[in-house]
């Protein structure tokens, strides 16, 4: 005789495992929202800022200077770590560099779509602050998971906001999808990407016609090397990059490495020895002609334990008919 029993179809053990997976994802979403960086295990830390922040206590412990070439969060240079030397601009610097262009763009109302981390949220806050000071109305301020691929919900809200400009802060892969999906949803706002990490060449290749009409804040303009402060160095870098047959889309990121390494080399030469304390001291006095511009450091953060911050150049370019043009 068969007996009916109300056991679950799947073993409870399996369900517990799956719950754990869902729970981990859920809490990761929550933690990312409130700005807590989670490291290790399954949980990815998708952008540079969180990685730099994780390394910072170790710099203090081992007393080793670190050159930062990709991070934008103000926290990196304002938390009182004298071993940080940053050559990339902060979001605040980027927003200030864009400020004179607000009138030219005739921005009346702006929306924001940014990754849900220090990189995206920091840029969104700084640009909102700058725009408000200029009397621009802020519409929707949306966020997204750094790994998300579907932005339909955010874009539907942005479309309904009726703003004339949408500021996007994320990496190039998500920016590609945002441009495509904005076109699909007939979002009329002008799209401007910030953060310097959205390679226009990659956008043209990946987003095609959807990239036309978009604007991008970049820290190097390899399409017009004459436009930068040190054109000879820029031309040399682009020539070397091309000769080695690297993808052109990598130029707007690759220059950071060039500038960073040349800064370190200059500091080591000035120190006369490859010792951390001597290099740290020498770093404060370096004057390097970089691809982005002239590299030198100013003090930021609490007195007595200031971090070093370079004041880099910021450029705006536009994609027009599949080509990058000067704005």
């Amino acid at each position, binding site marked *: 005789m068969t*007996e009916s029993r109300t056991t*679950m179809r799947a073993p409870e053990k*399996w369900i517990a495992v*799956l719950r754990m997976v869902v729970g981990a*994802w859920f809490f990761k979403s929550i933690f990312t929202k409130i700005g807590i960086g989670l490291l290790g295990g399954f949980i990815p830390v998708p952008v540079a800022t969180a990685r730099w922040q994780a390394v910072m206590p170790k710099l203090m412990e081992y007393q080793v200077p670190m050159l930062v070439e990709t991070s934008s969060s103000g926290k990196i240079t304002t938390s009182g770590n004298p071993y940080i030397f940053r050559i990339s601009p902060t979001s605040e610097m980027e927003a200030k560099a864009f400020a004179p262009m607000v009138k030219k763009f005739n921005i009346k109302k702006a929306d924001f779509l940014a990754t849900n981390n220090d990189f995206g949220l920091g840029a969104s806050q700084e640009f909102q602050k700058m725009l408000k000071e200029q009397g621009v109305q802020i519409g929707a301020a949306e966020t997204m998971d750094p790994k998300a691929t579907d932005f339909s919900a*955010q874009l539907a809200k942005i479309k309904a906001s009726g703003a004339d400009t949408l500021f996007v802060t994320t990496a190039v892969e998500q920016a*590609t999808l945002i441009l495509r999906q904005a076109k699909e949803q007939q979002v009329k706002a002008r799209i401007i990407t910030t953060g310097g990490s959205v390679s226009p060449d990659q956008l043209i290749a990946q987003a095609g016609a959807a990239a036309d009409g978009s604007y991008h804040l970049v820290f190097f303009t390899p399409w017009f090397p004459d436009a930068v402060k040190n054109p000879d160095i820029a031309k040399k870098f682009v020539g070397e990059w091309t000769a080695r047959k690297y993808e052109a889309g990598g130029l707007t990121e690759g220059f950071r490495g060039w500038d960073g390494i040349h800064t370190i080399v200059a500091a080591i030469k000035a120190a006369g020895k490859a010792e951390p304390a001597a290099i740290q001291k020498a770093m404060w006095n370096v004057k390097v002609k970089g691809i982005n511009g002239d590299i030198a450091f100013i003090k930021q953060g609490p007195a007595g334990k200031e971090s070093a911050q370079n004041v880099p150049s910021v450029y705006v370019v536009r994609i027009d008919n599949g080509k990058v043009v000067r704005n």
Partner: protein
Amino acid sequence: MDQLLQHGLNALMLGGTYALLGIGLTLIFGIMKVVNFTHGELYAFGAYMMYALVMLLGVSFFVALPLAIALGVALGALLELVLLRRLRGADIDTTMLVMIGAWIALQNAEQLAWSGVAKSISTPFPAAPLVIGPVSVAWNRVFVLVVALILIGVTYLLINKTKLGRAMRATFQDRDTAALMGVRIGNIHTATFALGSGLAAAGGALLGPVFVAYPSMGDLAAAKAFAVVILGGLGSIPGATLGGFILALVEELGAGYVSSGYRDAMGFLLIIVILLFRPTGLFARKERVG
């Protein structure tokens, strides 16, 4: 109102893809009791096969789609024969660890083969969206929804109306009795894993052109698939289908009217709430045990 309609349309499109991702996973779990951690990588594999066929070999988009799915089926069968068949009878933890290892190996192999740069896949659909009154949707998304619904329907019919499906269900209900009745359990396992893998690859082949193909694209897809399966009930195809649409609707409305920052969290919060009241998910049935 226009915004609500757009969210509804977006949820419909997204729900179809979530459902497609979920049914392959639920099938494998339901029959084989294997948590397929490679599901996301099979999804990425489908996308990369579309890229290789369409962009590198110049194969027609509509020919490449079934080919990519067939390659996904073949990879799934290979994984079952090489890895899972040897683990039959092994404890649950061992199987899970091996599948996690396979997931990492496959993802790194994708990065090695295709580099970390995202790949775009062109489609034959018009760039201009389909505009219906105040709302709009891309033609390729409409195509994805239609094909996803067809694949879900075909899978349902295969499981419920064919001899193979009957053997699968018999294995699902009671493996030992099914074996005594002449069902070749080994073949059923291979067929099930291959079918589930093919569905994952189909998801990637359909969505790769909508989004872009990149090595870690399977991570989020797998997380969504797990969510859909848990929501719908482990082993239930109708549950996974409906779960996909429910998850998409919750995410869309949550992001649109509450906070986009909590878009993913809302879906998973719903699942946690449902699991508190229905630990087997919305649609899993009670098992009959002899």
